Structures are given as C-alpha cells and as structure tokens.
C-alpha cells in the first residue's frame, strides 16, 4: 500500500510516505519553505515525497492526517464555553482560526491533491505520536508514553504496543490525561514567562535550568499538583490558556514568581534577576522530570515490560528522558528522531498501514535520514560562478580531520536530510570539542545565540563509554541525541566546548552502520587528537531552519565564520571565499 501521512496547521508541518510498509520519504515543510517551524499546509513536503517515490496523488491508497479536527474543535469550543463570558476576546479569533481551514482538513487535502475525500482519513493526535514512537522502534513489545501540549483532548497517554509473530501490530491505549491538565502546556507557560517563544524555546529553558537551583519547586507544585494515582492536575488560577494563547500564564503566576522576562531582555546569569530566571527554569524542569519519572515508573510496574517508547514534544526533553531511563525501571528507552508533531506524519502513515489496513509489520530502518539529498554539482556550479576554487577529492575525510584538528569549523552536508529537529550528521556543523573558547566562538560568530545554551557532541559508539557516563540502555537513547548524560569527570576539561555547566552533554552515539562516513571522520579525528569526539551542532543560523540544499549551505557558509564547507566529496575553504569577497568589494 502507498500511504501518505500529513501533519500540520499547528506547528512544524511535515509529510511522510510509506510504501509497502516501509518509509521511503519524510520531510518537514520548514526545510523546503525555509520558514522556521512552518505550520502551513505542507504542500512542498508532499510534492517532494511523491516526486521522490515517483508517484502521483492518484497512486496513493490513503492519505492520513495526524489528528481529528472535529474533536479538536469540540475541545476549543467547550473551553470557550466554560470560560464564558471571560473568553469573549478569544472566541472570534478561535472560530476564525478553526472554521477558516482547520475544521475542513479532509476537503482541503482532497482538493490540494486532487483526490477523493474518501481516501483521506484522520486519526487521533496521540495515536500518531504513539505509532511514531513504537512502530519505528526496533522492539517487539513496549510500554508507550506520549506527552505534549495538547492534541484533541488528550495531553498525555500511556499504553502498550506489540508486534506479533503473525505480523499483526497492536497499540493499546490504557488511559489519558486531558486538557487543560497538560505537562507540555505547563512547560510552555514557563517558557513564555522566561521570555522565550512557545513551541520553539522550550529547549532554552532546559539549558537555562542547569544554571539554577530548584529553589522554587514548592511554588511550582502549587501550579502542577501531583495526584495519588500518579497523575497530576494544573491549578488553573495560574494559567490562562484561553485568554493568553501565546503565553498561557495568568496574573497570579506573576504574583507568585515576580515579573516575567521580556523577550528582548538578555539573561545575565551574574545578576540577581538572571539567577531568579535560572532558578525558575530549574524548578520547572525538576518538577517535569519528577512527574515523568513517576508516570513511567508506575507504567513499568503495571506492564512489567522492559522497553519504553516515548513520543510527543515532551520527549524532546533529554534531561527528563535520561532520568526516566535511569530511574523508572525500563531497560531501553526509544525516542524517535522526530518525537514532536512533525514526526506524527510518519506515525500517522505507519498507524494506518499496520492498524487501519492491517498490513503485516515490517522493520523500519533505524535511522533518521528520510529527506532530500544534496546535489554536489550545484555547489560546484555556484562556486564556479562566484570564482571560488573548489576541491573535489575522494579522500576528503583526512583533509577535514586535519582542519578540525587545526581548530577550523566545518559545515558538513552529506546524504539525505534528517527528519526531526536534530542535526545527526547529515546537515551539521562540526568543530573540535576541547576548548570552551570554541563554544564561545560558535555562539558569537556562527549561531549568534545565548551563552547559556550548550553544544552537543557526537562520538563513535565503541568509544562512548570512555567519555560519557551512559546508563544501561543509554547508547540507544543517544542514537538520535535524545538523552542528556554526564561527561566523565576526567574528560570534562578536555571536552569543555560540549560540557554543560552541570557536567552533562546531549550526546549522539553513532553506530558505524548508521553513518559510515561520519564514523570515519570521527576515527580520523581521534587519530589526530586522541579523542574521537566532535562538537556537532545543526547547520543553520539563528532563526533559520536547518539547511537542506547545497545552495542554502553555501549561503550560510558565506554569512558566518564557518571555515570549510563540505558537501559529499566537494570542499570549499573560507580563505578562498574571503579573497573573492574582497575582490567583489573592491570592484
């Protein structure tokens, strides 16, 4: 069967194509449209997926949308009714938003693709998350937790999944928490309070948390109250999800924690105000971890299963993931490369294939590389047009390792684009991980971002334990950079650029089979430095999506302090570009 999965209309739209039970293409709309977190209908992503597979919309057996718009409308309307008359400002906005396009998504998809609405189906949001987490994971039976802001009504679900010997698959949802009691919305409200953009700045809160102490956790517990059955409830006096959709916190929240940070105000961690924000971030993070570990522990005891699959935006919280793995009793924790809404496109397609159409289970290749491939010839052409000498060399790995050892920063484009928010070695910026000055240089000259945000390392799997204190199952969690683990104390000073203030790192543990070229680069660099670890950050500038094509990589390279751009076997170095730029300016 040929099944197209679509997610969109909220944030981070995407499309994914499954043919005969196996994914063949998946890409986020933002990577093609070049608008970060593009929430629009993912037409470009759909077109690319179909082109890549050589299909037309009429060849599709089904198109699956990742949530049920009518249930979502029900939730929105019910919330507005419950908030009457205080919700009068939100009502027109919400209705225009829902009735304009979102409610008629089946018709919209059918008209955009030119197919019958009968071929378009919707499944529940958390079913999509659960399928994305479980059906892509190399496990036969697992407990499943999905947690995010909100889907239709559910905000957090627990259940189990099984792939049976007869080829059938099953996802059993046991129970759920419903809106407005949401761990994701709680964390998003804290994100907004700390002056970061919701659905974008949550990982900044996690980074900031390491600089603070959870001194405000007692107050946080007034907001989010754990319950006897392991669930939790939000005290809605502190939140305003209807009136202040962008921020979500109420004036009582401000009364409790003090004035919020203004979005443009820099965080000075040496100031009392900066420390207050860091402590609030630390307290929210600690409470989120506590709740997630509690829910996971209960689920493990209840199911007796040793594997856990985690999906939803909350699964992007690597600190919480690592704690779950250490403390909840599971042996392995699987987080897909795209646990957020973008990943739901693939989840929805797989769910339809295995569950709705009862197709036999097939193992999903265990990598995140489902997007477009770079065109090295295009880089050659652009460089030629700009008069920049290019080196095309089959033995580039050694040259790149030399450059890294000489403290050069490398822009690396290789193979199919990653699906998900992390750069896992196909659209990455690499640098030597040893000196803190490298971290400062990257923050100042390339990423233009806050000093409290850490950089991640990538290490070959066979060396991971030497440098990082991985818990049992930690290598699996770190496959897609989904867990934050301690850097071994004896290596922290020599891995200063990737060691966060609390001695941890969000490491990627790389198997040779998943990405042999990057593995070879790590080995080559290890021979030179004695430490086969590289700093690996996404290939983009602040406010931009990760690059997709070589043209985008080239323009990024031209605009920042990356020293060398490598696309496949083609390489450009900055000295040559600098000379060309000087000539341009003189002309």
């Amino acid at each position: 069967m040929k099944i197209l999965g679509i997610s969109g209309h909220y944030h981070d739209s995407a499309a994914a194509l499954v043919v005969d039970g196996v994914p063949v293409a998946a890409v986020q709309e933002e990577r093609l449209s070049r608008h970060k977190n593009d929430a629009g209908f993912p037409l470009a992503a759909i077109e690319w997926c179909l082109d890549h597979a050589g299909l037309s919309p009429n060849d599709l057996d089904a198109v699956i949308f990742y949530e049920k718009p009518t249930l979502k409308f029900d939730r929105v309307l019910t919330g507005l009714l419950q908030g009457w008359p205080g919700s009068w400002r939100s009502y027109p906005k919400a209705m225009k938003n829902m009735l304009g396009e979102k409610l008629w998504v089946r018709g919209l998809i059918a008209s955009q693709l030119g197919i019958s609405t009968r071929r378009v189906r919707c499944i529940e949001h958390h079913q999509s998350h659960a399928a994305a987490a479980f059906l892509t994971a190399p496990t036969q039976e697992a407990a499943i937790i999905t947690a995010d802001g909100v889907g239709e009504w559910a905000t957090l679900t627990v259940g189990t999944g099984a792939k049976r010997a007869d080829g059938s698959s099953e996802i059993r949802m046991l129970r759920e928490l419903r809106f407005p009691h949401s761990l994701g919305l709680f964390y998003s409200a804290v994100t907004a309070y700390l002056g970061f953009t919701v659905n974008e700045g949550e990982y900044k809160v996690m980074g900031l948390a390491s600089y603070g102490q959870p001194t405000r956790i007692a107050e946080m517990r007034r907001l989010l109250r754990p319950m006897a059955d392991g669930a939790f409830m939000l005290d809605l006096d502190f939140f305003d999800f209807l009136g202040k959709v962008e921020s979500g916190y109420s004036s009582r929240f401000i009364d409790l924690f003090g004035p919020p940070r203004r979005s443009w105000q820099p965080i000075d961690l040496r100031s009392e105000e900066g420390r207050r924000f860091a402590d609030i971030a630390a307290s929210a993070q600690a409470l989120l971890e506590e709740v997630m570990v509690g829910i996971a522990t209960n689920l493990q005891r209840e199911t007796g299963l040793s594997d856990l699959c985690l999906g939803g935006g909350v699964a992007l919280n690597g600190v919480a993931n690592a704690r779950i793995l250490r403390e909840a009793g599971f042996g392995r924790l699987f987080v897909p490369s795209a646990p957020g809404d973008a990943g739901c496109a693939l989840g929805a397609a797989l769910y339809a294939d295995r569950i709705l159409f009862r197709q036999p289970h097939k193992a999903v290749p265990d990598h995140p590389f489902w997007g477009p491939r770079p065109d090295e010839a295009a880089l050659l052409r652009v460089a030629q047009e700009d008069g920049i000498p290019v080196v095309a060399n089959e033995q580039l790995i050694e040259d790149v390792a030399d450059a890294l050892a000489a403290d050069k920063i490398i822009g690396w484009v290789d193979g199919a684009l990653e699906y998900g928010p992390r750069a896992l070695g196909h659209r990455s910026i690499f640098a030597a991980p040893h000196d803190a000055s490298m971290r400062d240089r990257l923050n100042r000259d390339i990423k233009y971002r806050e000093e409290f945000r850490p950089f991640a390392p990538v290490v070959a799997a066979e060396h991971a334990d030497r440098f990082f204190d991985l818990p049992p199952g930690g290598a699996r969690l770190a496959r897609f950079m989904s867990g934050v683990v301690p850097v071994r104390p004896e290596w922290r000073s020599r891995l200063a650029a990737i060691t966060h203030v609390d001695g941890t790192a969000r490491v990627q543990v790389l198997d040779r089979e998943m990405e042999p070229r990057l593995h070879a680069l790590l080995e080559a660099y290890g021979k030179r430095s004695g430490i086969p670890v590289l700093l690996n950050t996404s290939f983009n500038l602040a406010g931009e999506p990760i690059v997709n094509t070589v043209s985008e990589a080239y323009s990024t390279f031209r605009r920042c302090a990356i020293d060398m751009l490598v696309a496949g076997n083609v390489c450009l170095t900055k000295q040559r570009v600098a000379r060309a730029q000087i000539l341009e300016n003189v002309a």
Partner: protein
Amino acid sequence: MGAPSLQGDPPREAAQPGRGTAYFGDVLGMMLWPVHRLIWADPQRRARKLLEFAEVEASGGRDLVRAAELTNDPVLRARYLAHARDEARHADMFRARGRALGKEMTGEGKEGLADWMAPGERGMEGLDLAREKDADLLAFLHLSESAAARDFARYARVIDKDPATRILFQRILHDEDEHKNYTRGELGRIAPRRARRVLWWARLRRLWKAYLRFATFFAGMIAGVVLTIQYFVLLPPFVWLARRNARREKPGWIGVGERVAR
C-alpha cells in the same frame, strides 16, 4: 555599508523614485507628520517599535538570503548576500537601540491605535521567492526600499528629542538609499528594455497587496463583530451544559479501557 558596486553607477533616474510618487509621498508625509510625532514621542512605544523593526529587518535579511540561494545570476547573488548582511546589521542596530531605550520599560510596550501608520520595511511582503523572476523581484525590492527610505526619513525628522535614535535612522537611511539605487541599477542591467514596465507592474502588485491587507483586516473586523454578537446571544444556553460537563469530569487519569487499536 552599501552594496558593492559591480556594474558601475546606476542610471541617473535610479536615484529617485518617479516624480509623481515622490510628490504623493511628500504630501502624505506632511499629512502624517503629527501622527508620526505622536507615535515616536513616547519612549516606551519608541523602544517597542524599534524592536519590531529589528525583527522585520532580520526577516527581510532572511528573504534576501533566500533570493540569493535561488537566483542563477552570480552578480545578483553577491548583491543579495551583501544586502542581507546590511539588513542583519540594521536588525542589530535597531535591537541595540530598542534595548537601550527599553531598560526603563515596565512591559512589552504600549500599542496605540495609530501604530500601524508608522511601519518599518515591508520586505518581500510574502512573495513566493521561488516563483519570482529576477526582474520582478528587483522591482519589488526597489519599491520596498524606496518606501522604507521615505518612512525612515520622516521618522528621523520627527524624533527631535532623541538624537541617538535620529542618528540611527539617518545611518540606516543612507543604506536604504544605496539599496534603492543598486536594485534599480540591476533591474536596468537584467531587463534593460522593460525596466519601467516591470516597475509599474510591481507598483500595481504592491497596491493589490495593500488592498488585500486592508480587505483582510476589514473582513476580519466584520467577522469579529458578528462572532462577538453570536458569542453573547447564541452561546449562553450551551455554557450551562459545558459547565455541567466540566463539573462531572474529574481531573486525573481517564481510562481509555477497551479502545484497542489492532
């Protein structure tokens, strides 16, 4: 920093917008002078607007980078990248000044009714860059830069009690003039015979986009009024039902029970 000159001086007419447009702009400027003075008088609003301008400039810079990535003309690629660097620098300048002014701000800054009358650059106005031809894009950019230059000149004139912000506008204005000139020059280079026609077409498209903005705003306003009336007239009976259901639903886990997906 202006864009590098690769093709010599632009045509003479390039340095100035059409006479009719300039006249219209001057008259409009005189009419709006008191409004602009009012808008820029309040330091909090000034700070907020500068921070907004910073975002617009940064976004415009990203659009120019995209244009550079998509064009097949190496000269335009260099121009766009240089232009994008300028826009990023403008964003930094606006942000720095906005932050400096905003140190005493108590909130995110007040929004006023007349606020929309003092826009920053409009950038590419949501153009689909992948579908635009180089000439059309240059014409659009030229008009956008011309409008921004006119606006920034007006703002610089009314901000007489804040010399630092005035100087900031004057410095950016200098760059906008450079951008205006290079876009006209490049348009003359790549479409020498139809440059005027392309410019007029771009003017019409800008007018159409302005109409669409207005129409969308107006339609949104009408919809808002109708929906607000509906909210207060039709919804109250359902409010009772919704609240009753809410009282019945206990927080905590809700069993999904038999809902097994196989």
